[in-house]
């Protein structure tokens, strides 16, 4: 199969970008991310990761695959398996038919990941495009080049148990329409993102969630140094480490706004892209503040400057997405 690997910032948007491009509809990663309304923020105290609350800068796993397929009118074929053996057979069959196959897997059991990046995250996405001498030929979107993986290791990764278990999920796209009403798609997706960020009644979701996190940081007990260090660096990891394209997906979404602005020759979207880039820079500054505090360099200042930086971000994101929601409703 002739297939061009393309490195991406995030696994799910990268996989969808590659699948659609391969099917003849070239779509960039930021476009796949934006059109599926994947940008978000959520502070979920009840979902624990190593004893820390889940802090998400995007919609939950599988959102991009499902939403983008639906909006583009693509037929998405998916299958999960109760018996691992059947899952392997189905993958082999699809590859033998010349399909490009999306797979959900654990990060921990993929041997080509650097040891320091291997954590138990079961909702990683990658593409399989062939087999060769008992190994699978994989296009893992976050890597620079295609990789190879033994059948045994891939098998273990696809069927790893635990939270968000993939159960061998594989998927491919059928019948990809090539003509689209881009204005309608962009309006719809931006409106949906504005609602998630600035229209949810829950205090943990969207921009209210950002303010909530700021209050949590402000309320940290300054004497609990070790907990604070782990808590603040946990936030930084969620924001930067887990393939986000920088600043918790804000740069990627700004890139989408810019591309949409060029496509529709729309000044307002391009201005919004600039503003979100500046907000993204502030997210990076916020990450630096968290790390400085953890390293004990700003220890005397306490948590207030960090919380204030976050409140400022929340305020600007609210203003930006109010403007974008208005644009989406009024643009003809």
């Amino acid at each position, binding site marked *: 199969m002739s297939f061009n690997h393309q*490195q*991406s*910032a995030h696994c799910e948007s990268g996989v969808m970008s590659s699948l659609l491009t391969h099917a003849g509809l070239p779509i960039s*990663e*930021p476009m796949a991310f934006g059109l599926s309304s994947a940008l978000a923020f959520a502070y979920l105290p009840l979902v*624990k990761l*190593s*004893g820390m609350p889940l802090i998400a800068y995007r919609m939950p796993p599988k959102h991009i695959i499902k939403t983008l397929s639906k909006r583009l009118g693509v037929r998405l074929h998916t299958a999960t398996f109760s018996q691992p053996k059947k899952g392997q057979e189905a993958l082999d069959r699809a590859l033998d038919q010349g399909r490009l196959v999306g797979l959900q897997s654990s990060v*921990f*059991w993929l041997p080509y990941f*650097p*040891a*320091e*990046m*291997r*954590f*138990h995250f079961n909702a990683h996405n990658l593409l399989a495009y062939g087999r060769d001498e008992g190994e699978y030929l994989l296009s893992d979107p*976050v*890597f*620079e080049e295609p990789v190879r993986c033994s059948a045994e290791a891939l098998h*273990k990764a696809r069927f*790893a*148990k*635990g*939270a968000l278990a993939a159960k061998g999920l594989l998927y491919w796209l059928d019948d990809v329409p090539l003509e689209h009403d881009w204005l309608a798609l962009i309006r719809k997706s931006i409106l949906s993102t504005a609602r998630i960020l600035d229209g949810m009644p829950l205090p943990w979701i969207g921009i209210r969630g950002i303010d909530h996190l700021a209050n949590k940081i402000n309320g940290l007990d300054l004497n609990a140094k070790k907990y604070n*260090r*782990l808590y603040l*660096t*946990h936030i*930084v*990891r969620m924001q*930067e*480490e887990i*393939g986000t*394209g*920088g*600043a918790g997906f804000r*740069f*990627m979404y*700004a*890139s989408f706004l*810019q*591309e949409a602005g060029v496509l529709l020759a729309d000044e307002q979207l391009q201005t919004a*892209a*600039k503003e979100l*880039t500046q907000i*993204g*820079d502030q997210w*990076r500054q916020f*990450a*630096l503040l*968290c*790390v400085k505090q*953890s*390293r004990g360099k700003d220890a005397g200042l306490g948590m207030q400057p960090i919380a204030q930086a976050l409140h400022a971000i929340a305020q600007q994101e609210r203003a930006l997405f109010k403007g974008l929601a208005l644009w989406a409703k009024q643009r003809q």
Partner: protein
Amino acid sequence: MKLDDVPQDAETSSYAGHSKLLYAVDQQGRYQGAQSAGWDAENYATQQALAELELLEQEAWHGWRSGQLSPLPCLMYRYRMDELALAQVTGLWRWRLRRHFKPQVFARLSRVVLARYADAFGLPLEQLLAHQQGTVHEL
């Protein structure tokens, strides 16, 4: 973020020589993908999480050496899990996990239950059986 500001902190990087993709703007403000060799701040955050797991593993190892703990907690941290994650992966309740952390309970575990742990850690069952019989002194 401008292209020039894309961090290239390769010396402290946790990417093991790999680069990852970020989105940044050029002089004219146009977005493009840019490879980053690593960022100090991010790497520091990753190292905190790893160091904490190593510390917990060390403590559990000493607990095992001194006969206060079964080998399971040490292996749990070594394979980057906590109680919640191990409970989810093995499908066992947390209170059962905690019982299995006691050496005397661990010694009586059935092959079926041990196999669940072996699978969770990606270890051969024989290795856990050997620990159960106390024939190995390494962990």
